[in-house]
């Protein structure tokens, strides 16, 4: 029972971590909450659904088709995030801290209701990517789907780590996150790096959307809100702006939620309350998160 719960927590945590990375990357550079991130994740899932119908003709079924669907949905989600940044956030960057947040909420409403009106108001079935087997490990049943989700998430996190730590562009991203003005003086184009960050964050969010669709088997126009809000909690928990913190926070939240719904009476009803309560407690007790550093107030 416990092992089963841990495996479920690991799967859920992997999805939260991927979403949380999108929040944390953007926050690290612009210190703004990309409120529309949950909609990017939802659009990623819908693109994957569309591609799942189209792609078998191109790539065939099986692992190649699956990978193709994944990569294209990620690129699409990343691109949407870049477009949002260009038109809804960039003009407001120097006005006030509140303005981009309001605009982000507006974008989020537009995207969600756009899908609601023009695509579907109902839950759509998300196709099974591969035939699902059940494996017995130490008394827990693990489906091959959970293994795929976990493997894909870990692979993406590994790629992100390599990109941020070992490439020139990653170095430029870190420089902008430390001090965007100085980075500009050193010959880095901040607008380009910000767009890149939105692309990477959006792509990870899109991947999370696809994994979410696989995990639950159906998608809906409003699927982004709850995982988005919870992943933000995860990012804050780990220390917003901190990449390792986002991953850690995502897994902690995933475990907390699964354990709470498994072991507290009526826990399943209260699982969403738990995430938000954790958020409030963390912000009150340790606003900088588990791995975050304390940022001095700028005058």
């Amino acid at each position: 029972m416990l092992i089963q719960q841990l495996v479920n927590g690991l799967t859920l945590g992997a999805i939260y971590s991927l979403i949380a990375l999108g929040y944390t990357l953007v926050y690290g550079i612009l210190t703004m909450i990309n409120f529309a991130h949950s909609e990017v994740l939802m659009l990623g899932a819908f693109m994957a659904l569309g591609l799942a119908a189209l792609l078998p003709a191109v790539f065939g079924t099986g692992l190649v088709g699956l990978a193709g669907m994944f990569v294209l949905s990620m690129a699409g989600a990343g691109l949407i995030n870049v477009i949002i940044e260009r038109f809804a956030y960039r003009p407001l960057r120097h006005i006030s801290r509140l303005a981009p947040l309001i605009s982000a909420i507006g974008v989020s409403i537009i995207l969600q209701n756009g899908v609601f009106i023009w695509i579907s108001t109902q839950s759509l079935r998300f196709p099974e990517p591969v035939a699902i087997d059940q494996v017995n490990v130490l008394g827990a049943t693990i489906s091959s789907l959970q293994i795929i989700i976990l493997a894909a998430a870990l692979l993406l996190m590994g790629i992100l780590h390599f990109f941020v730590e070992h490439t020139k562009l990653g170095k430029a991203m870190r420089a902008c996150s430390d001090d965007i003005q100085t980075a500009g003086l050193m010959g880095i184009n901040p607008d380009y790096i910000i767009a890149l960050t939105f692309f990477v964050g959006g792509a990870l969010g899109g991947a999370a959307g696809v994994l979410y669709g696989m995990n639950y088997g159906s998608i809906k126009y409003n699927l982004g809100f709850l995982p988005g809000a919870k992943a933000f909690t995860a990012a804050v928990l780990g220390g917003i702006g901190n990449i390792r913190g986002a991953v850690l926070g995502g897994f902690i939240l995933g475990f907390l939620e699964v354990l709470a719904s498994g072991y507290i009476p009526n826990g399943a009803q209260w699982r969403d309350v738990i995430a938000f309560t954790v958020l409030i407690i963390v912000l009150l007790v340790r606003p900088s998160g588990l791995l975050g550093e304390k940022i001095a107030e700028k005058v």
Partner: protein
Amino acid sequence: MKKLLDWRWTPWVALALAAAFPFISAAIDAQYLVRVGGVIGLFMILGLGLNFTLGYAGLFDLGFIAFYAIGAYTTAIAMRAGVPAPAALILAVLVSLTIRALLGLTILRLRGDYLAVVTMGFGEIARLTINNLDALTNGPKGLQLAPWRPLSFISSDPNVQYYLLILAAVAAGVAASSRLEDSRVGRAWIAIREDEIAARLSGIPVRHYKLLAFTISAAFAGLAGGLFAQWEQFVTPESFVFWESILVVSIVVLGGMGSIAGVLVGALVLVGFPPIMQWKLSADWINYRYLFFGLILVLVTLFRPQGILPSSRREAELTS
């Protein structure tokens, strides 16, 4: 003639027109407009309330509808327990104020976007708690109330009665807002909004004033919630979803943060427009309602960040 056109008279003319509205609509056989008017009024009260937090003190609140819900449920539960309706309204205001003050004491030291997310979290916690606490709130099935007809000597139509009651509450809210805005307290709020650190250094007890603005907001929401419950005679958690909070934020942003007239116009446009569109164009229009709110939020922040009817103070802030 010059005296008659004085802007000073505008609020009174508007009030008189609004009070005559139900009788005019009865004359032209369009009573359903009274209902729309009542709902607009409720959102005017909510907007005036949020204006204290978002407009004057500059604190972002994305869970404001939770206090509307608390007001509505307090009224419903109290009236079902046999408390007289006016007392239930007062109780609704008091309970909202208390919970808001306790919340403010804990979360107000957070800044900007963190505050936004925590209030959003609180809004969801409140809704989910109402939804899950079957013993007290009857869960998703909702609570039914006995009817209360406060103004039956004016009209037999309950919609007209509640319209007038809500109108009176709006007028009282406007009067209270403008008195507070011009007071020492109001100036302190605006100082905090413009530059919190400078305000603190000038000797303004920032935390104290923030808490005051935050708490006063809830009195408006609690009152609106109570009136809503008594009018509808039915409350369910469905009425208090996250998007309703966003609607109230949109009203304040569209009208002009910190501007009383702006909030009233914002509510009139955002809440009045969809039903009129639905009636004039097609029933499908109601689906486009939120898309329209989203577009308004984005376009207003991009092209007219001060709102439709900004306060002169706020306009100076944004253009400096």
